[in-house]
């Protein structure tokens, strides 16, 4: 592993350079793609267009679990304008793909395992022709019983969702319908429970959440003359896609050239493959460019969702509020295909204790194979479900102890040096108590804001909003708190790296840099940060961000809050090497002109080589003179370890992130409608490379947590395993009238192990937002609410 994790502590010379170059780190530099995005010119994957292109259409299963008896494509094939109708029999090479487990069929063969699984494909000259042709494909199913929960999955006579498993977890799981099981045992929870004066237990249910990114799965596959394919898609990880796509096309990776098209949000839902392989197969088969765009209905079947979960928790405490022990079991429903279920299990298990010090724990997390929709990555990744449950437990415990819920949390708060249940020492700042203090200290939003107008009640400020359901009747305010812990980056021994290619040259007398990575810009603002880092490190004003593609090494996934840390770190590292090379050239050329070339610490600032004392030795134009310096290097974070499969011990995580929320809600207690009035967040971000983006990420993550608290859930019929609400009419996400003001305080306590001290920021706010809202609703209603989302029925006893 490259030994380049030495960091520049915040406040040392790298920060100084921003005085010389506009748009360096620490500034709220504006997005480089902003103009294109506000003028409608930014090319998203669904905007791709090619002369003579065809439209691809998928036919998906109408049942959740069935043997495929027959597929008849005859009628579809003879339709005018139809160029190809394909089934699994037409697949050119590998029939399965998958990120961790190659268990997902490109097109179903033998059986279908979930509602909406792709079974056949059409390419036609117009989307409507393709739809009509798909409708003419006849599929005969022989339905099988559906597996929908732990009981049906692990029953002695349960049908195996996947026969003959042969994956890295199949050897140790207690049942083939369990994807992965991760226990963690530390101390002796049963023994420690005897010291407890108070014990609380709870059973919690977390609903299935959808990423609901706005840009639908889409892209364009263009067949190439060399027999390969050029693919323009929206993804979170080009190289992971490539590794899965090439074998299914029977092509070497170099013949599958991937370019990142504009991504309309991701949130984990684009980490797995969607239309990439299917469009490519159609393009190769027809010899024509093929565009595919899922509509919103299809999008609900087109990507994995957040794992729904059942969680059982027991916490004990002494009467002065010190936690004695914790026991929990977490069951995550992975659905029909594994996706990243195993890693989600590892996360849920290892973060199930929350940001608290508990010496004696007994933890078990499992992920199931069922016939429900496949689940995988979504912002928060296993830590979200656990946080919802342990934070509910903290409130329960506080109530039972008669303690203030914030004080109880602060009393048990983790800090730097705390040992996690996995045995890993938290070796960088963990300001859990401080974050809680900050949100608690904020002034409360004014009461009864609906009266502020002076005349009639302003319903826009009331639960129910424009629907005019209350003018203040039944409305009760509640306040709730929560705090969470999230790992940053890929864990459990994964060889996680990013690659940055940096080129520095002089154009028209000015030193300029080009940053080329495969980082997926999904909206988070990586492209802004990358240019800021290059400006800071190389002291040049003009930085060009090269489009992300597979012509450069992998940047890893835009997920797990890792990109600023990882690709940012890779850019910083490559820039450092470029700088050394530039200085080397300078020394060769001008070393004899001034002793400082040999003796002083030299920096690149404002397009010049300067000493740390600020003396200018040469301009970069003079140093480089038509010569370009280019470096492509991989960069790794410090290695992690796998968790022991029996004890769960191991330094599994790269970094931890913390956020706390205070939710103020107003509940119409008679109708069970909720208005969130304010959702304040405090988070440690390590170092805010771009404060504007930092706050934007925190507000966005907070809002997704709010959504799952009060409205978001994919509803699956337990009898048929069919999705009941695959539309934006019935899967609701917060509107601007559902979203409160979100004041943000952030701390910058540098992580000495991370570049610039950064801490991944995108995920932590999604954790604590949900339990804070739940706590506030409980405070307003006095009800014990153990399920997300909180539906009006749960608040009015009308389930």
């Amino acid at each position, binding site marked *: 592993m490259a030994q380049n994790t030495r960091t520049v502590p915040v406040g040392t010379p790298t920060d100084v350079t921003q005085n010389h170059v506009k748009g360096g780190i620490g500034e709220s530099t504006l997005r480089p793609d902003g103009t294109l995005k506000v003028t409608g010119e930014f090319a998203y994957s669904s905007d791709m267009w090619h002369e003579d292109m065809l439209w691809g259409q998928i036919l998906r299963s109408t049942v959740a679990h069935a043997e495929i008896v027959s597929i008849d494509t005859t009628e579809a094939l003879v339709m005018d304008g139809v160029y190809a109708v394909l089934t699994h029999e037409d697949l050119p090479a590998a029939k399965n793909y998958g990120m961790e487990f190659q268990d997902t069929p490109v097109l179903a063969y033998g059986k279908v395992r979930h509602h909406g699984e792709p079974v056949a494909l059409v390419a036609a000259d117009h989307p409507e022709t393709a739809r009509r042709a798909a409708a003419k494909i006849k599929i005969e199913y022989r339905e099988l019983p559906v597996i929908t929960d732990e009981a049906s999955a692990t029953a002695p006579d349960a049908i195996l969702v996947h026969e003959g498993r042969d994956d890295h977890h199949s050897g140790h799981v207690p049942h083939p319908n369990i994807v992965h099981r991760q226990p963690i045992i530390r101390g002796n929870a049963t023994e420690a429970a005897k010291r407890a004066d108070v014990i609380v237990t709870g059973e919690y249910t977390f609903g299935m959440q959808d990423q609901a990114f*706005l840009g639908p799965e889409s892209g364009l596959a263009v067949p190439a003359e060399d027999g390969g394919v050029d693919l323009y898609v929206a993804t979170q990880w080009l190289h992971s896609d490539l590794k899965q796509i090439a074998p299914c096309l029977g092509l070497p990776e170099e013949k599958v050239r991937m370019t990142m098209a504009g991504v309309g949000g991701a949130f984990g839902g684009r980490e797995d493959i969607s239309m990439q392989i299917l469009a490519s197969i159609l393009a190769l088969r027809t010899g024509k460019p093929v565009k595919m765009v899922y509509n919103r209905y299809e999008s609900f079947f087109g990507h994995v969702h957040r794992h729904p979960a059942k969680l059982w928790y027991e916490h004990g405490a002494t009467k002065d509020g010190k936690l004695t022990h914790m026991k929990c079991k977490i069951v995550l429903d992975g659905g029909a295909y594994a996706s990243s279920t195993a890693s989600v299990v590892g996360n849920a298990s290892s973060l199930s204790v929350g940001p608290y010090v508990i010496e004696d724990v007994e933890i078990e997390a499992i992920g199931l194979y069922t016939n429900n929709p496949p689940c995988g990555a979504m912002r928060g990744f296993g830590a979200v479900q656990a946080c919802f449950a342990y934070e509910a437990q903290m409130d329960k415990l506080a109530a039972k102890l008669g303690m203030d819920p914030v004080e109880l949390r602060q009393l048990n708060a983790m800090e730097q040096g705390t040992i996690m249940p996995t045995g890993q020492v938290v070796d960088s700042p963990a300001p859990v108590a401080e974050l809680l203090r900050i949100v608690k200290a904020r002034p409360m939003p004014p009461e009864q804001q609906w009266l502020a107008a002076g005349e009639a009640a302003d319903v826009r400020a009331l639960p129910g909003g424009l629907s005019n359901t209350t003018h203040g009747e039944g409305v009760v305010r509640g306040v709730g708190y929560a705090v969470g812990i999230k790992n940053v980056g890929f864990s459990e021994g994964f060889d996680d790296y990013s690659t940055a290619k940096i080129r520095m040259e002089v154009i028209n007398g000015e030193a300029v840099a080009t940053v080329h990575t495969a980082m997926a810009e999904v909206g988070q603002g990586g492209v802004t940060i990358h240019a800021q880092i290059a400006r800071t490190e190389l002291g040049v004003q003009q930085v060009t961000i090269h489009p992300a593609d597979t012509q450069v090494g992998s940047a890893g996934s835009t997920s797990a809050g890792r990109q600023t840390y990882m690709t940012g770190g890779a850019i910083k590292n490559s820039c450092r090497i470029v700088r050394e090379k530039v200085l080397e050239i300078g020394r060769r050329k001008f070393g004899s002109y001034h002793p400082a070339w040999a003796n002083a610490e030299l920096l690149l600032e404002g397009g010049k080589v300067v000493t740390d004392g600020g003396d200018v030795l040469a301009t970069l134009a003079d140093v480089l003179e038509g010569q370009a310096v280019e470096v492509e290097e991989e960069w790794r974070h410090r290695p992690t370890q796998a968790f022991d499969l029996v004890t769960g011990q191991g330094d599994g995580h790269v970094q931890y992130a913390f956020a706390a929320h205070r939710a103020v809600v107003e509940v119409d207690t008679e109708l069970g409608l909720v208005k969130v009035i304010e959702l304040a967040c405090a988070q440690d971000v390590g170092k805010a490379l771009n404060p504007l983006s930092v706050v934007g990420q925190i507000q966005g993550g907070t809002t997704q947590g709010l959504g799952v608290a009060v409205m978001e859930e994919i509803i699956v019929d337990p009898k048929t395993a069919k999705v009941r609400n695959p539309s934006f009419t019935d899967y609701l996400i917060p509107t601007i009238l559902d979203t409160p003001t979100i004041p943000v305080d952030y701390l910058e306590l540098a992580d000495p192990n991370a570049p610039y001290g950064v801490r991944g920021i995108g995920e932590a706010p999604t954790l604590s937002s949900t339990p804070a809202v739940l706590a506030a609703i409980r405070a307003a209603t006095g009800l014990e609410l153990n399920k997300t989302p909180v539906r009006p029925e749960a608040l009015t006893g009308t389930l």
Partner: protein
Amino acid sequence: MRVNFTVNGRPQEADDVWEGESLLYVLRERLGLPGSKNACEQGECGSCTVRLDGVPVCSCLVAAGQVEGREVVTVEGLAEFAKERTEHAGCASGTCGTSLDAAKKWEAKPGQDSQTGEGVELSPIQQAFIDAGAVQCGFCTPGLLVAADEMLERNPSPTDADIREALSGNLCRCTGYEKILDAVRLAAARQERQGEAV
């Protein structure tokens, strides 16, 4: 069927339109104007919002045949539309917007040049969205811009509740809306200042 209508001040003609096609599809796939976005195609997200004879509508729910002879303004024409409004109180000259040729030549180009609004003429609301950090993935942005611009036209000094109500038909999944509110407030404030200056 054939449909003739005006987009961003320029006459457009679309041929061989399937009767079930939406205005959104025609704009995106036939006229090379993909700025209006296809996020839900069921009127729930507002990302396809355009002005139809001046009125903000979801272009996914307007049948192509219904726009025959009518005027459409999309995000691509918003800057020009706003400019015309300031200068002549309306985009009537017929010269604003993207030319037919330019529109047809439009093609996805990976790696567009880096810009933050310099050197490009933007409407006040477009500039404010950039400046306030209201753009993340940007997929909701075109619809929000068209809706917000129209609100400011009607209501130059909106309260926060007014902004929220006017934009309640536009879903955003990235920002949590706070910076969108900031952007609209910023545009309103700048507009007011500009008004005072004139």
